[in-house]
């Protein structure tokens, strides 16, 4: 977790913090990487249905090694299982769910998030990079609530929450909430509101490692 590893929440704690805010009965898509951790922390008694855009509604826990199936994978191409009540479908139906606003929450990683909720998470824009977008642009446009799960700063300490993104955008004004190792931040028309700070993090410190104006709820 780079230079921040001794401060704030660790990645599992962030995942648990996000999971705590996912209501019973929600349909949720988890992006590749860090967001996948969220599935491990859904509070007991809540039934949340995970969608993976490669054609499964009702993603279950990871299989034990000997039960892995090359043809039962998630969007990150990792083996998964299917819960009772799951169903398989093709890609056009899957993105009907995504684009049509049928999925309640999507948790995604980020290179940058702007004060107005712009998200950059698909390309660093470097000339040598192989551009790859996957389903991110569909998800940010179609899913009702977009949650970003990210370290508060880059490995080298640069803010990832910025006034305006300089990486190529995934979508404009699409992010609703940002969960980092330092804080939970709500993206509103009036600006970025800090809803919660991790133990040991104060507002002054948080501002010092954030590239956009932060506000506190009254």
């Amino acid at each position, binding site marked *: 977790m780079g230079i921040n590893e001794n401060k704030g929440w660790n990645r599992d704690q962030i995942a648990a913090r996000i999971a705590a805010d996912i209501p*019973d*009965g929600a*349909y949720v898509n988890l992006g590749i990487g860090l967001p996948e951790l969220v599935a491990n922390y859904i509070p007991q*008694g809540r*039934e949340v*249905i995970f*969608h993976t855009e490669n054609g499964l*509604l*009702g993603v279950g826990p990871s299989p034990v090694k000997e039960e892995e199936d090359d043809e039962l994978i998630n969007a990150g191409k990792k083996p998964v299982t*299917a819960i*009772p*009540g*799951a*169903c*398989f*479908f093709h890609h056009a*139906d899957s*993105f*009907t*769910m*995504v*684009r*049509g*606003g*049928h*999925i309640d929450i999507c948790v995604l990683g980020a290179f940058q998030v702007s004060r107005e909720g712009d998200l950059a998470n698909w390309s660093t824009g470097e000339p040598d990079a192989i551009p790859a977008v996957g389903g991110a642009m569909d998800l940010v*446009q*179609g899913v009702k609530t977009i949650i970003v799960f990210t370290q508060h700063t880059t490995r080298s300490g640069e803010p990832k929450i910025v006034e305006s993104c300089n990486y190529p955008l995934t979508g404009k004004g699409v992010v609703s909430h940002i969960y980092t190792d330092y804080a939970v931040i709500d993206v509103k028309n009036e600006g970025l509101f800090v809803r919660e700070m991790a133990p040991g993090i104060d507002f002054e410190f948080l501002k010092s490692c954030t590239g956009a104006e932060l506000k506190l709820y009254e």
Partner: protein
Amino acid sequence: MINKIVGTAKEAVAEIFDGSTVMISGFGEAGSPIELIHALIDHGARNLTIVSNNTGNGHIGLAALIENKQVRKMICSFPRTANSVVFPELYRRGEIELELVPQGTLAERIRVGGAGIPAFYTPTSVNTPLAEGKETRIFNGNPYVMEYGLKADFALVKCKIADRYGNLLYNKTARNFGPVMCMGARRSIVQASRVVELGMLDPETVVTPGIFVDKVVEISNPLSENQLIKENRRYPWA
């Protein structure tokens, strides 16, 4: 816990409000959710826009809903059939509006309405009266008509088997518009001939994934429109 099963058709349709747009599955009788429609008649919501392939038969089901003056406008492809008497009469008297849509265009408008696509181009109806007033555009030298996605507040759908997540299986050609209407409506209300335990449906064979469904009511032995028409029945029952 997710449990989309409700106890009665009355409870299932209770949320339908005056002025809403309601998609109703079925192709003729096949797939028509007659118990849900009758519950909507009892419920009394008025000024409805109904999206359905036909306009109902005899004096039951969709025809009875129209006859009960709850429908302001029909969006459909084929508003007359052998036993369709209610709609033609009201239409001739100018008491109900009609938006006539080719059947394939209707199905696609409903599907894309549920898929976040606001409009698309189709060759269907080009150079006909049904394209009048619509934008046309040339692609690869051929003309196409622009059609808008269609969204509804509610869908009333009949299926064969459901579980508490709202996963649905249909019966033969009664499938027709059910799956796309579940996609195209903000709230999908389904009557199933049978509700089974979670895990009983093969995940490979589910036709409508539960995410497109909001409420399911079990109606074990749905009425047969054909039978009711033979018996000359009317709803509300005399």
